[in-house]
């Protein structure tokens, strides 16, 4: 079940603003993961591109697409091409860096995003593997580093370890866990990260939210 592409709509889709599924739609989706992981108003965004992303980001609209995602826009949002101006009006300081090193996550279409404000900071490394499908191969949240297998969906949640069995059973009602990682914040508070084989239904997510105060579902 290690398939990178799971849905017919990964192949016939996404519906998106052009010009590139990898460099525009995929970049927007990587940005959207940043939006979800940060979950708040940012003041600073740093985007570091590697390999093909570094060489062609300007021509492919990768800059506006990444920013659009960070603002929470979907790849088919007509505001995407104006995302940089919108973000600047919101007072967000944006920096793009073309890194000449090979991608640390070993994919030609890779980007590292750092989002911050006065009180918190997150970062992630994503790659756009083709046709708008993305993988998240590393992220840091609350100073804890995670290295997921890559493919979405990924579930990140904070919970008391005594609830872990309940959480896993709830997840396994509709999907399977490919791998999982955990990190201790306090003895009563862990961050769990799960790589899943298929989507969690909305009803399952609702049940899971009863067991945790912080749940981020990346799909």
């Amino acid at each position, binding site marked *: 079940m290690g398939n990178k592409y799971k849905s*017919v709509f990964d192949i016939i889709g*996404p519906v998106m603003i052009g010009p590139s599924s990898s460099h525009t739609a995929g970049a927007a989706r990587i940005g959207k993961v940043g939006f979800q992981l940060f979950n708040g108003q940012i003041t600073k965004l740093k985007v570091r591109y590697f390999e093909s992303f570094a060489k062609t980001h300007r021509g492919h609209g990768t800059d506006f697409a990444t920013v659009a995602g960070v603002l929470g826009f979907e790849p088919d949002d007509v505001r995407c091409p104006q995302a940089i101006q919108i973000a600047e009006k919101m007072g967000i300081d944006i920096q793009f860096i073309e890194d000449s090193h090979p991608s640390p996550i070993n994919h030609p279409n890779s980007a590292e995003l750092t989002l911050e404000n006065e009180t918190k900071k997150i970062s992630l490394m994503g790659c756009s593997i083709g*046709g708008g499908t993305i993988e998240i191969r590393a992220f840091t949240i609350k100073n804890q580093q995670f290295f997921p297998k890559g493919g979405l969906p990924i579930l990140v949640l904070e919970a008391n370890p005594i609830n872990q069995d309940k959480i896993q059973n709830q997840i396994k009602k509709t999907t399977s866990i490919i791998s999982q990682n955990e990190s201790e914040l306090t003895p009563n508070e862990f961050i769990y990260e799960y790589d899943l084989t298929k989507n969690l239904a909305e009803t399952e997510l609702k049940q899971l939210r009863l067991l945790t105060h912080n749940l981020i579902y990346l799909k």
Partner: protein
Amino acid sequence: MYKSIAELVSTANKENKLISELMIDQEMTQSGETRAVIIEKMSTNLEVMKQAIERGSNGEGVTSSTGLTGGDAVLLRKYREKGQSLSGDANLEAMQYAIATNEVNASMGLICATPTAGSSGTLPGVIFMIQKRLNLSHEKMIQALFTSSAFGMIVANNAMIAGATGGCQAEVGSASAMAAAAAVEITGGTPEQCAEAFAMGLSNLLGLVCDPVAGLVEIPCIKRNVIGAVNALTAADMALAGLSNKVPADEVIMAMKDIGERMPSALRETGVGGLASTPTGQAIKMKIFGETI
């Protein structure tokens, strides 16, 4: 999930189902959604394709933000009206639709990736032309999209569909092969013929590099969708006539992967080699971005 085209074809035969039906079943299992929801979502995607074709073809068409491309679908439409084309109006119509879609894509308009944005004109070019000629129903068009996604998903999972990892053969090559398979199913071909059309379609575009001028999805990407569409039609016709690729579809996918992996980075969507490195390609890059490679 289906691991190979051979498995897809044998399941279709065993269960006496169309490949498109197998794909709808798989999507229901995978997403947990109802059939109606899945079909409705696909209808939305089909409508986006139709609107892109119209936007690119009607009136003065569209122009990209760089001004490098646009208006070619309109030129083709006007040329068709004269009725003196060399390659026949079916080809011309598919070409017009393919270009129209990719011009809308280059102008940052709304398109549906099939399987990618750079190759988004190939499949619509083929199926909307067939729809007009054979008066296909909306249901048949939806069917075509599911058939093509069945083949596309196997390519995507077993090889690649990104120009940055496998060159244009992975994008327009895959799109063309997917379209060929879909064309065969909606015109009454067998699952084996779908696989043969796919195999011939992809075989004939193996080795195609991704060398976009100035890194833009414009030159040569837009017109590469013309070869994708026309190649799909010829592959579908060959399969319907009973021709075989001899090398099975799954092995062609492996060959595509092998070629993609051997392809130098300069020819994989870096805007460095091929047409991008020509004097004209570099001059265009200089004009737009103010720098050389």
